[in-house]
């Protein structure tokens, strides 16, 4: 997935794996995908994906996990990372 139109020399392109659950899985039509992105943070990555695929959930309705741990939205992305956006939960 190509996100940036004009390549900024300072931007770094990384490839991450995004796994989708629940409503995001339905809206994306996939359980996971590799995403090549110049997004610097998880927040930027979600905004890019939400715009590209029409996700209905706003970022403030979600939590985010990086490599199987809850993390802050401002966490930077590293090559090969696994990202999961976590919709409002409903266990129990």
């Amino acid at each position, binding site marked *: 997935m190509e996100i940036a139109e004009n390549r900024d020399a300072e931007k770094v392109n990384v490839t991450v794996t995004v796994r989708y659950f629940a*409503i995001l899985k339905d809206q994306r039509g996939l359980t996971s995908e590799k995403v090549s992105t110049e997004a610097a943070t998880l927040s930027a990555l979600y905004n890019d994906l939400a715009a590209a695929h029409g996700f209905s959930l706003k970022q403030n309705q979600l939590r985010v996990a990086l490599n199987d741990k809850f993390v802050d939205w401002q966490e930077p992305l590293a090559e090969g990372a696994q990202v*999961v956006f976590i919709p409002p939960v*409903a*266990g129990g």
Partner: protein
Amino acid sequence: MFKFAAEKFEIDPLKKSLEDDRAGAVVCFEGIVRNRNEGKAVVTLEYEAYETLGQTEAENILDEAHTRFGILDALCVHRVGELKVGEMAVFVAVTSAHRHEAYLASRYIIDEIKTRLPIWKKETYEGGSSDWVNCQHLSSASACEASHGSK
């Protein structure tokens, strides 16, 4: 001990695993699939979990219950997959020397499981429509945020 279960499970062996001569109380909670939710007739539901993170988070919750309430032991099993009305979705059991701590810890565990574990529930209603619970009423973002709890 926490685990996800893809199939129906028996609770007697789970209770047996908690047997302890120091325990004066065993409090068990069973969460059951109800036939109505928000005024709609529920026929089946599907639980989907992000199991790796869910396992870690559930173990954190059980550890917190130990620390906060001084219980002897606690366990929880949560179903995933498709469930019908009347089936058990979640089981929590706590042992302690006295009943007070066991009740408090049981309540703490199920409340935290509901707000913190990455598990989602898709309900299918009479007539065939379905919804991911807590993800539909998007005009009230606060309700969705609240469903994640304070942590």
